């Protein structure tokens, strides 16, 4: 408080208002997304991602789910019968994590590289483009998707290479003290 000379003619200041006892100590912050609702909506694959505003990701999950059901029904039970529950559960977890990451950003907190990747990643746009190319080539008769299904183990190789690449990147980043390069 600044110190000022008191004037005897100045009337005394009214007492400051007393805060009511029921006043909250901190303001209530309404978070933009509910992780529980996002996970619940994902009971229909992709809907939770739509709720989070990740439309491309929603389509990627939906087409992965429908595609694995289609390939299972067309005689490729292994491994696509196992892919169906994997896509389904991962879709729910992704919606939950996506809503949490959005809330974290809203609150201005630091997001970890993992959370940033949850919100923004080139994988989802890339998946949509790949789905589009594959279905288009199939429609034009230049590619037989059912014959292509026998090449599914290449996906395992790609995922394995991805994990190796990421772990090397993280190791390099931890050695140099920087944040890992985000892809």
């Amino acid at each position, binding site marked *: 408080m600044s110190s000022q000379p008191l004037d005897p003619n100045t009337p005394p200041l009214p007492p400051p208002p007393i805060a009511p006892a029921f006043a909250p100590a901190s303001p209530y912050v309404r978070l933009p997304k509910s992780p529980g609702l996002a996970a619940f909506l994902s009971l229909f694959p992709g809907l939770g991602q739509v709720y989070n505003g990740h439309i*491309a990701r929603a389509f990627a999950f939906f087409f992965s789910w429908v595609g694995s059901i289609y390939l299972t029904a067309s005689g490729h039970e292994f491994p696509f019968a196992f892919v169906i529950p994997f896509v389904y559960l991962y879709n729910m977890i992704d919606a939950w994590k996506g809503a949490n990451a959005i809330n974290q950003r809203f609150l201005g907190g630091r997001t970890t590289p993992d959370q940033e990747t949850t919100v923004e990643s080139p994988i989802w*746009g890339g998946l949509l483009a790949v789905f*589009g190319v594959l279905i288009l080539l199939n429609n034009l008769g230049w590619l037989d998707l059912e014959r292509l299904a026998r090449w599914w183990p290449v996906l395992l190789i790609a995922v394995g290479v991805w994990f190796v690449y990421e772990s090397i990147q993280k190791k390099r980043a931890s050695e140099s003290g920087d944040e890992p390069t985000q892809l």
Partner: protein
Amino acid sequence: MSRRSSSAFSPEGLTLGICLVAVGGAWTLSNLGRIELLPTLRTWWPLSLLLWGVLELADLAIRRSSGRS
């Protein structure tokens, strides 16, 4: 809050607009007797997925480059 707030463009909106133009054009050509609408759409609809995916990647690249600069 939207992650699109600082974006140069919205991939969803752009894809929807281009698809509407394409469907409108195909429908007009169909009404003029130049093409058959349903077989054309049945064959070429995955182009919308391809376009959308490419626009998402472009949008992400633009936002990352503007974030770095």
